[in-house]
């Protein structure tokens, strides 16, 4: 079992969620985040004062998936979140040791 953590452009969230549903990912967690990367920020001008905004708004998606659908899930995110312009984001994959569904106490794949 793996945890997929993807940082994407905020306006791509719905497309990514739909794409993940289609490959069988049953649930995701979404967080609004700010980040700094190659895209860099922009400048804002208020009267005379110029401010460089380094951190840009992004959306972080977390989804735990079974190894069997990992590749398809990654591919779904890549395709749906891509615009081809700088700042499309990143996907991280890490191992998951254990999963428990709180309501029933189920563990492992059946807890997803």
């Amino acid at each position, binding site marked *: 079992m793996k945890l997929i953590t993807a940082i994407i452009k905020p306006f791509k969230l719905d497309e990514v969620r739909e794409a993940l549903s289609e490959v069988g990912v049953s649930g995701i967690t979404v967080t609004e985040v700010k980040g700094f990367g190659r895209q860099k920020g922009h400048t*804002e*001008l*208020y*009267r*005379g*004062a110029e*401010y460089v905004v380094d951190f840009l708004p992004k959306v972080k998606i977390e989804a735990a998936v079974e190894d069997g659908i990992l590749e398809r899930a990654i591919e779904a995110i890549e395709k749906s979140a891509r615009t081809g312009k700088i700042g499309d984001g990143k996907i991280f994959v890490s191992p998951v040791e254990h999963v428990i569904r709180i309501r029933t106490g189920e563990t492992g794949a059946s807890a997803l």
Partner: protein
Amino acid sequence: MLTWMKKLLASGAVALAIGATGVMATTAAFAQEAKPAVAAAAAAVAAAPALVPNKADTAWMMVCTALVLLMTLPGLALFYGGLTRSKNILSICMQCFMVFSLITVLWAIYGYSFAFTEGGAFIGGLDRLFLGGMTPDSVAATFSKGVVIPEYVFMAFQAVFATITCCLIIGSFAERAKFSAILVFMIIWFTFSYLPIAHMVWFWPGPDDIKDAASLEAITARAGWLWQKGVLDFAGGTVVHINAAIAGLVGSYVIGKRVGYGKEAMKPHNLVYVMSGAALLWFGWFGFNAGSALEANGSAALAFVNTYLATAAAVLGWSVAEWVLKGKPSMLGAASGCVAGLVAITPAAGFVGPMGALIIGVIAGVACLWGVTGLKKILGSDDSLDVFGVHGVGGITGALLTGVFADPALGGTGIWDYVANAAAADYSIASQLWIQAQGVLTTLIWSGVVSFIAFKLIDMVIGLRVKEDEEREGLDISSHGEAAYES
């Protein structure tokens, strides 16, 4: 406002004798017998039975008074509050609310009397201390012979001017000044700067007894110092805007820069508030400028139209200049241009023609954009919300351009000759400009000196700033114990 009548009558002045009727002669005798305090009201009622307030004028002036209140609460509070960081908006709202209320009370106790009763050329007298002697029958003169409004209405209308002027100042040292220090400063500054300047520029005994050159001279001699010089300030370019702006600028120097100024981002936290506040100011300013005619008449109509047009021109002026020079036209720029235009047309409102107003507006929009960028760099102080850049530069621009566009040859009304009962035939732009400049300089120096002394005194006694950690936390929590937004 009535003491002039009392004194005229009691001293049997020549001016009255010329046109004296049987009624007036009787009144003079009556006034001499009566005790001074009673004489004022009695004289007003008896001297001229015709001088009964017109109901439309009265209603209009009460509406205008309420409109000017709206400019401060919530107009200015929103305009300023949106410009601060989210941790300081309540401190701005609270400062506006408290200063407004404080000055209102002081106005009733002694402010009105010192500003608008006869005394010297620089400050008024004590006749209306605690509003003493004022009754529903008391009347105040307007700019038309034989037209009066209830003195209660005149007093209240002038009160809201004093309050907004004081509230304007807080923008210069927003986000760092100690609340108690602000309140003490306002008491001192209101007493020693607002009241004298208002008296100098606006006090005169009224036109009713001007019959010839001699009576004009006699009446003028009892007016405020800058009125005597002939300074044109229809609704408060000097008294309100330049007066407040220089006080704010001095405050921003003495109090010092905000912690992190120039290093951390200090951008406005809600430009929708700023836009809403600017729009409310525009709306309320119709009461401010058109109401300054003191009657519901053609002069008020002209001031109304000019307030409308100049502001629109200033929005365009600022926004287009910003678009060309900085690359993008911003909402903050449009809102700032709106206020700049309102400030600049204030002294000119009833004196210039509509096309003059458009030109004043465009020039003010561009000049104030420079005020908050180029000039701000030169001045080097942390005038947090650009009070001097907008109100100072706009006020000076408007005060000087009033002298230009009041010229009948440029569509202005010229200067009214109360002896001939017509606009004066000759008008010299150069000499009027010099008179206007004297008004500007007097206000800058007077208010600047009073402010500097007041800030220094307060700094020594109670301190001007909050502690550094309180400033970082934000004044909403550290000074007022509440937060505007759930985090």
